[in-house]
């Protein structure tokens, strides 16, 4: 009902008596603050080229603010720039820079509080603490923005796109780099994150907590300090994303913690220290993903159960699967493993002997990480061969009993 009302309201405003206010340096209305003060619901403010140092500007009416090629709002490292609270507000083509840092407030270049139907489009946000900070907002669209932080320490940098307690958000086609977390979701539901590029952030490319029924697809998360973390959520769909070069002792393509009833499909995990790390997760469907050249394609902790891994392809990973226990309550089937050395006598495309994706050496490395220095040595391959002949240390029932002989079509 609220949605419906909102749309009706929006239509009314735009078809009504909407004006365009031209403001800016050299204009009759020289400052943004003044233009915002004059604007009525439904008006559009066109802010001309120039650098505006006006401190914090509060927008509460349903207006559209549009910039030109060089319209710059500068916070001089001490102010929050735009604070938005209302409905049907659009900010477009503005460059916001040097928003201030505050240890007490989460200062942001654009802060949206208690709002409805907000659109942020094609803005550039440079060198801010938080770039876009959204709380308690419904129907927020953040699209085509370029966000670039000045990464220092985890404490001194805020998140790129930060959403808290919101729903029905659409985060699309943004490029975010150099923040603490590229995209941060907490208590955000029914939202879509798609086609974003989140890279070189200090902590996570995407950080996701207590956010149910969300869908993220076609994003690229690259070279982030710790990859992507998805925690304490259910019914999440993750599709067609790329997780690349997330390197470090605690970096993961995806870290899954207490995730249930979710889908991970058609993603590509390339050159991550760990492709997917899972703990306390249940009833996941992990299918049709490509794992290439990762350190560990999967680390499945013993606290996971009832997960299905099928139709995935594993290529050139240093280790396919590692685990910390011998209890295995997950199923692997119809995956392609490049290390599989079995045969297929009946030519049905499925290997006749099961594949054990956890090698003896993977268990040794779990116990004593220093032994990583012996990877690919003759001795290690002898150990692995011996273990294959007489299994003793590796979990016996962690196996793919129907490994496919040729890579799955993804």
């Amino acid at each position: 009902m609220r949605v419906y009302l909102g749309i009706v309201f929006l239509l009314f405003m735009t078809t009504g008596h909407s004006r365009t206010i031209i403001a800016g340096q050299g204009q009759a209305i020289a400052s943004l603050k003044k233009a915002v003060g004059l604007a009525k619901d439904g008006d559009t403010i066109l802010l001309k080229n120039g650098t505006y140092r006006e401190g914090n500007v509060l927008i509460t009416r349903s207006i559209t603010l549009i910039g030109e090629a060089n319209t710059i709002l500068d916070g001089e490292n001490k102010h929050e720039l735009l604070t938005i609270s209302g409905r049907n507000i659009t900010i477009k083509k503005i460059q916001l820079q040097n928003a201030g840092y505050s240890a007490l407030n989460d200062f942001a270049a654009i802060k949206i509080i208690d709002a409805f139907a907000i659109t942020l489009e094609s803005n550039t946000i440079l060198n801010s603490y938080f770039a876009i900070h959204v709380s308690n907002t419904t129907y927020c669209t953040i699209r085509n923005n370029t966000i670039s932080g000045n990464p220092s320490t985890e404490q001194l940098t805020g998140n790129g796109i930060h959403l808290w307690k919101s729903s029905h958000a659409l985060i699309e086609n943004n490029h975010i780099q150099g923040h603490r977390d590229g995209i941060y979701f907490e208590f955000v539901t029914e939202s879509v994150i798609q086609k974003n590029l989140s890279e070189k952030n200090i902590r996570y490319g995407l950080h996701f907590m207590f956010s149910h029924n969300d869908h993220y697809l076609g994003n690229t998360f690259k070279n982030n300090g710790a990859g992507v973390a998805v925690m304490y959520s259910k019914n999440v769909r993750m599709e067609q994303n790329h997780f690349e070069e997330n390197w470090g002792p605690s970096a993961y393509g995806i870290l899954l913690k207490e995730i249930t009833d979710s889908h991970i499909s058609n993603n590509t995990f390339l050159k991550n220290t760990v492709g997917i790390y899972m703990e306390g997760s249940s009833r996941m469907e992990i299918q049709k993903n490509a794992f290439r050249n990762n350190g560990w394609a999967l680390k499945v902790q013993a606290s996971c159960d009832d997960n299905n891994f099928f139709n995935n392809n594993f290529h050139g990973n240093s280790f396919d699967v590692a685990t910390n226990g011998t209890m295995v309550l997950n199923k692997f089937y119809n995956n392609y493993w490049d290390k599989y050395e079995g045969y297929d006598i009946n030519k049905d495309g499925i290997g006749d002997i099961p594949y054990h994706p956890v090698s003896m050496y993977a268990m040794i490395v779990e116990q004593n990480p220093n032994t990583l220095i012996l990877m690919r040595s003759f001795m290690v391959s002898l150990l692995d061969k011996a273990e294959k002949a007489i299994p003793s240390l590796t979990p016996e029932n962690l196996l793919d009993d129907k490994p496919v002989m040729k890579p799955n079509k993804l």
Partner: protein
Amino acid sequence: MLKLSRYVLYDILRSRVIITYTLFLFIVSMSLFQLEENDSKAILSLLNIVLIVVPLIGMIFTTIHYYNSYEFIELMLSQPLSRTRILMSEYGGVALSLLSAFFIGVGVPVLLFAFDETGLALLFTGGALTLVFTSIAFLASVKARDKARGIGAALLLWFYFALIFDGLVLLILFAFSDYPMEKFTLVLSALNPIDLGRIFIMLKMDISALMGYTGALYKDFFGSNTGILFTGGIMLLWIVLPLWWALKVFRRKDL
């Protein structure tokens, strides 16, 4: 020196062993690239060839060659040639022929099918290990009294570097797992040229896993310029020191 090496080379080529070795490497490498679904798996098999077969063949070939050239060496000794020059010419001839065998047998297929960082690292390591184990084999031959002892010593040394050393490292790492062993393992790796070469290739092939290591110490170290200099320097030492020692022994040896 080159003049003498030419005769050594000529003698080696006449024996056809080196041609067989080249063909063997070439056929194995080519078929690996042809048969395997993906090149990374072929590279993995090649890695084992580089780390295991290349040192083994290098050692055995060099040792046998040394004893077979005993007459030649004797003849040269009665000529106005210094012993250093005679042994260096032998080394040059053997090393050059083994290197050519490796670069034709493995290098060409790698350049054709896997011309990337990993492939190049593989070739660098293979080349360096060829030189290292030729040096070590010369030392073993010069020190051993007869052919049987020489080949025996070469095999034992190979076995030690290829397998036993890593077993000892594993034992040490587990025995002292309560202590910080990172720096120590770094030192250990320098004590075995095969390990050093393996880590060098791993840095390209398994970079993702290495980054997972606490503090990413190995990557930080071996990946840095210092690390590359370190690897190159230690490899060079592994080539030069056994050869220098062999020369020292050879110069004082009664023939």
